[in-house]
């Protein structure tokens, strides 16, 4: 016990905060060590593989062709056109899985830490409140990006291996060379990531207000569902520009040729608005929150 005391000299006696890089690394390590993060990342990585296998089997048995030229929708387009598999998978995941991941990460970031009792440890350390929010936002954003990239990579590999194809057949019927096709896939992944970030920012604001992670997930998914419902009601089309999911359906514009950028840019701006609103709310709540 005495030797332990001798060893314990203050090493940075004048420092008032821990180095940012160390906090970010620690946060990433924490999120990536959390069992449910790993399970969710693993399942997401499997989505394109399962979809690819399914499409390959369906193509072998001729099921897709039987429905006519457009019968299988996007799935039929993917047949023999491997580079579309990651896009197809991300479109499927964007309906519920990826928003769920963003919401879950945000829920664990603040509400989960508060419920654990670990948030006050960070506040007393001290990690400044704005800084803590920045670290948390970074953790959520980085792992969201990782999830989307993971799907993109397994989707591309599974697509090329299972479905083949040395170029990308676009929705417009033209064929892009492999390199340009890959570029489109990455652009699609980036835009999807940004939309999930926007939702995760709103979820983070909720996360800063509660200590029940479930509330965060419920609110975020509720927002997605309600937005979808409101979007589907023609009488409420004046609401459309304000809804978070409005641009999500425009994302497949990326695989048109030539690419119509109007809706995509609008989508990025809309997502940016939600991002700013979400982080602002989160910050204002974080600064006054009782730890």
């Amino acid at each position, binding site marked *: 016990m005495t030797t332990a005391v001798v060893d314990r000299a203050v*090493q940075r006696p004048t420092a008032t905060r821990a180095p940012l890089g160390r906090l970010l690394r620690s946060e990433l390590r924490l999120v990536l060590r959390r069992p449910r993060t790993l399970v969710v990342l693993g399942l997401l990585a499997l989505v394109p593989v399962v979809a690819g296998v399914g499409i390959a089997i369906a193509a072998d048995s001729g099921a897709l062709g039987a429905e006519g030229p457009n019968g299988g929708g996007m799935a039929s387009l993917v047949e023999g056109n491997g580079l579309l598999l990651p896009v197809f998978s991300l479109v499927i995941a964007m309906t519920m899985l990826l928003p769920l991941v963003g919401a879950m990460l945000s829920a664990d970031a603040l509400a989960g830490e508060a419920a654990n009792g670990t948030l006050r440890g960070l506040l*007393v350390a*001290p990690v400044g409140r704005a800084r803590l929010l920045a670290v948390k936002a970074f953790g959520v954003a980085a792992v969201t990006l990782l999830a989307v990239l993971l799907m993109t990579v397994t989707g591309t590999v599974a697509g090329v291996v299972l479905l083949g194809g040395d170029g990308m057949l676009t929705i417009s019927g033209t064929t892009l060379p492999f390199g340009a096709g890959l570029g489109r896939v990455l652009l699609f992944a980036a835009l999807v990531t940004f939309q999930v970030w926007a939702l995760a920012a709103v979820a983070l604001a909720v996360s800063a207000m509660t200590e029940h992670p479930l509330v965060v997930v419920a609110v975020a998914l509720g927002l997605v569902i309600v937005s979808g419902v409101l979007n589907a009601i023609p009488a409420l089309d004046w609401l459309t520009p304000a809804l978070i999911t409005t641009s999500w359906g425009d994302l497949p514009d990326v695989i048109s040729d030539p690419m119509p950028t109007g809706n995509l840019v609008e989508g990025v701006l809309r997502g940016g608005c939600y991002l700013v609103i979400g982080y602002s709310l989160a910050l204002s709540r974080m600064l006054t929150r009782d730890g």
Partner: protein
Amino acid sequence: MTGTPGQEGVAAADAAATPLAARTRGLRKVYRGTVAVDNVDLDVPTGAVMGMLGPNGSGKTTTIRMLLGLVTPTRGEIELLGHALPDGAARALPEVGALVEGPGFHPFLSGTENLLRVAAAEPHLTGAGTPAAVRAAVERVGLAHAANRRYRGYSLGMKQRLGLAAALLVPRRLVVLDEPTNGLDPAGTREIRSIMADLHAEGTTVVVSSHLLAEVEATCTHVAVLNQGTVVAQGDLRDLLDAGTASLLVSTPEVESAVDALRDSRIPARSTAEGIRVDLTATTAPEVVATLVRAGVPVHEVRRQRTGLEDLFARLTTAADPDMDDLLVPQETR
């Protein structure tokens, strides 16, 4: 402030001799219309072991959370290690170790991994010095054998130790422990006491909250008694122990006539389960006995009793929380 003669003098002397490690003035916290803490003026002298004593819900934890900047007071001032909060929090808090409201850790990480996570946020640690600091802290709280097991599988006592280890990761000027012996067995309680004694010997100021009087009497140099959100007494522990008025315990079969006789002679007395308790502030023991004999009351036994902090605490808090009777066993109820 009740019944603490000389306290002003002590406080003044302390202020001149030693600066305060923590100081609050007029602290008030209202949670949605409920006043949790009101008008708390707390003085924690540097180097003291200050026990915050009070029943559950008396405002101990709220006060501690305000001291640590976790909660913003509705009104009042806080000075921590010479820095005014909240602006000076970044300067003061790195030198403060805290275990508040029970240990909080990630269940899926081991004890060591949890401490590494805490260490990453400690301004005073370098990355290179972190593993040694974590090892030292784990050894200090006697958790070395379980350091690599998952926190999920820890017993309550092990969790409490890990919380203490986190508070002691870095040498501190002030250590704040909220009910540190909760869930510990007697051996664990002794170890915590010995760690607190070590901290005291190193010159670290310790603030420890407890609802157990024996614990405060065993470990603290100073005490602040809280009741219903306010400080009802504070100061040097010995002064407070001595400050209680002496009393006399009289056993007699004729309780009512005895109390009547004493009250007729303007001697404060009340009947308790043990006998009649007579306040000796304004009178002496022979006079009490003489009064009783004059009135013809048979007296079996007369015992002189000094009211310790226990009695003070019991008097202050019995009515507040019925559960306390079980914990405290104040003389009145036995």
